């Protein structure tokens, strides 16, 4: 099974093709079955391959399969080849596993929507592209997946394409991603120029031989890694390119869960982990990665506090958590980043899906200030959401605690880390706990402010909804995946227990071979377990404080937030308006470019200068011709005169000058 792991790519592709081409004529049940079956098959293949991989010796855990030569031009060769190693194994399990759960969830969530087949076709295509991304054995195949998931994201964000905002959001996501891809491409070009190959293993080998140690100063390696990282900021929604992700919530909620929380947005983290041999040698870039990650985490957490839309809160929370993962990568703790990626995939998918079932129950009402007290109507959803919220808030014992704590510990102790980054991380942990519980309390607790959504008819689901009905728990296909994810959110942390709890961190151990080429300065020696435990305690404390503040502000004294916001109205408004980043981009980049293109380049330069010159030449010729044609005046005698003059001049020329 291990050697033919690549067949797992075929199932979702086939599913997408079948549903896309003839889904219109298929019954809905069959469509869902095909889509879920395809992903399940992929997951099973991945799991079998994974099991087989663990059976091998640690340094033998690497399989590559080359299907055909894709592009070949001189020394430049890119094969359609795939790589299965611990890193891609973990990733593919997350992708297909969580992906499968969300597919199942979608059957219930999307029930009765227009273009049901279209949705599942896109979703399967996404799984295929994401698999390409994580399984590719060279940068170009990864880039196919990288852009492919972007496309699926575009299609799925724009799923409700009748709404203007959906189209806007979809386009924005694609374009912002393209900005990142621009840098990513330049990074690829540079890799080929420097290392003569875009295959991971060859390129890394070449790096290892030419850079035995770290690069000093900002050199080529730093430039490559920086360019790749800019690509990652686009895909993984980091500063300054995070702006598309909150808007991307225009898509259906399962899509937000799958693409914009669990899998696609983590592609940047995967990419950095995959390129760890490059990043580990470029300390300058690592610093930038860590700082950008920390800054994004803080910024997004602050914005999340002021959001009123349940999905927007989660979106900014995702941006913030991704910041954590980049902090991990930035301090050289790739395994910790992947660990958090995994746990985050569980609890954030759970949160999104939970919010999805709230939204479904509320008939597409997404404003948390119009909910409240939902606990009694949706106890099951409340339960799983609570688990997830506790996990993300970093309450000890749950998955989020272990992964977040490991990142913070690494940020503190790793040679690339710095206490300042750690402090930022801890502050963000507090903020996270606060805004997540704010959301939870406002939604499920407190007084009822229920105001059902007026679901637009065009969404096509309203036939059987009753606006005055009480919110109801959704069906099994929605609740099933929620349960599984809740279990994973609780237990997911066990694969990566910290050193003060277990002798080996299993995930680290497993991922080790993937970072084989990494240049790792192991320097944990001087720090004791006691310090690690102590720091974890501090984080936990801060997190609990955040929960307490949220409890005070939104349950015990509901007027407090209003008072605070009045006291700090400037800051509050700034947070509410998301620091005006979108508006700034609009004013500084988009509008001037548009204005310049329209009024200067097109109207003035193209139509005026160039065409003006062309038409001007024609006009000048025409003016002269107008004058000259007067010679053709119709008088024979005048013509005779001209002929005579011409002949005379010719004779004169020949007898005086030519002779």
């Amino acid at each position, binding site marked *: 099974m291990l050697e033919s792991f690549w067949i797992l790519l075929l199932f979702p592709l086939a599913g997408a093709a079948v549903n896309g081409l003839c889904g219109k004529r298929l019954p809905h049940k069959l469509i869902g079955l095909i889509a879920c079956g395809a992903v399940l098959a992929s997951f099973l293949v991945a799991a079998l391959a994974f099991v087989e991989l663990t059976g091998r010796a640690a340094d033998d855990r690497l399989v590559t399969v080359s299907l055909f030569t894709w592009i070949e031009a001189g020394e430049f060769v890119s094969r359609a080849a795939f790589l299965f190693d611990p890193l891609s194994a973990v990733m593919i399990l997350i992708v297909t596993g969580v992906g499968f759960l969300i597919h199942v969830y979608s059957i219930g969530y999307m029930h009765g929507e227009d273009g049901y087949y279209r949705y599942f076709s896109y979703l399967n295509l996404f799984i295929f592209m994401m698999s390409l991304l994580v399984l590719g054995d060279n940068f170009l195949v990864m880039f196919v997946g990288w852009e492919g998931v972007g496309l699926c994201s575009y299609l799925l964000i724009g799923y409700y394409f009748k709404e203007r905002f959906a189209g806007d959001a979809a386009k924005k996501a694609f374009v912002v991603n393209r900005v990142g891809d621009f840098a990513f491409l330049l990074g690829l070009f540079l890799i080929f120029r420097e290392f003569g190959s875009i295959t991971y293993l060859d390129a890394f080998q070449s790096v290892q031989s030419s850079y035995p140690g770290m690069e000093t100063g900002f050199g080529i390696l730093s430039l490559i890694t920086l360019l790749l990282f800019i690509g990652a900021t686009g895909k993984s929604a980091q500063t300054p390119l995070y702006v598309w992700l909150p808007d991307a919530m225009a898509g259906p909620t399962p899509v937000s869960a799958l693409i914009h929380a669990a899998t696609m947005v983590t592609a940047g983290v995967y990419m950095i982990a995959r390129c760890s041999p490059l990043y580990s040698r470029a300390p300058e870039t690592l610093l930038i990665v860590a700082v950008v990650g920390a800054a994004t985490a803080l910024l997004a957490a602050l914005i999340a506090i002021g959001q009123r839309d349940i999905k927007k809160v989660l979106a900014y929370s995702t941006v913030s958590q991704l910041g954590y993962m980049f902090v991990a990568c930035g301090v050289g703790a790739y395994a910790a980043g992947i660990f958090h990626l995994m746990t985050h995939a569980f609890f954030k998918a759970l949160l999104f899906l939970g919010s999805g079932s709230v939204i479904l129950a509320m008939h597409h009402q997404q404003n948390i200030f119009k909910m409240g007290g939902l606990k009694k109507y949706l106890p099951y959803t409340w339960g799983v959401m609570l688990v997830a919220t506790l996990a993300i808030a970093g309450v000890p014992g749950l998955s989020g605690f272990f992964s977040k704590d490991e990142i913070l510990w690494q940020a503190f102790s790793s040679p690339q880390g710095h206490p300042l980054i750690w402090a930022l991380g801890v502050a963000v942990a507090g903020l996270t706990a606060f805004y997540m519980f704010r959301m939870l309390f406002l939604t499920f607790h407190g007084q009822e402010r229920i105001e059902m959504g007026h679901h637009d008819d065009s969404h096509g689901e309203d036939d059987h909804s009753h606006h005055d009905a009480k919110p109801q728990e959704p069906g099994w296909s929605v609740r099933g995946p929620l349960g599984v994810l809740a279990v994973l959110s609780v237990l997911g942390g066990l694969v990566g227990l910290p050193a003060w709890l277990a002798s080996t961190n299993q995930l680290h151990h497993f991922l080790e071979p993937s970072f084989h080429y990494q240049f790792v300065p192991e320097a944990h020696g001087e720090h004791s377990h006691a310090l690690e435990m102590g720091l974890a305690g501090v984080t936990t404390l801060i997190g609990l404080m955040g929960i307490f503040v949220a409890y005070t502000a939104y349950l015990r004294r509901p007027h407090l937030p209003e008072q605070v916001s009045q006291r700090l109205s400037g800051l509050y408004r700034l947070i509410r308006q998301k620091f005006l980043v979108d508006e700034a981009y609009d004013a500084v980049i988009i509008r001037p470019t548009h204005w310049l293109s329209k009024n200067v380049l097109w109207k003035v330069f193209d139509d005026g200068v160039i065409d003006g010159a062309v038409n001007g030449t024609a006009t000048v010729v025409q003016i002269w011709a107008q004058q000259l044609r007067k010679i053709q005046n119709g008088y*024979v005698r005048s013509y005779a005169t001209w002929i005579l003059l011409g002949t005379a001049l010719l004779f004169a020329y020949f007898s005086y000058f030519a002779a």
Partner: protein
Amino acid sequence: MVPTSHYLILGAILFAIGSFGVIFRRNAITMFMCVEIMLNAVNLTLVAYSRSFNQVDGQIFVIFVMVVAAAEAAVGLALIVLLNKRRGTLDVDQIDTMRW
């Protein structure tokens, strides 16, 4: 024997007179006659050269010129008659339809 240059000078003078007539006169028939003067001037020159080069070809050319002149007179005069019929005038200044 009269030197060739004399004939050439005479030819040039006649040609100039003819061309002046073409410009000067408004009557289509007179213009036509002036053209005939120019043709004869040319003929004179051709014959003069023919004698000067001691070659008969110049004279042959003159014969051809005469034939063409005859044909031209036939067609040209026919056109003039037609013109007079259509426009009722022989004044070329009145006939300026073919202009910009």
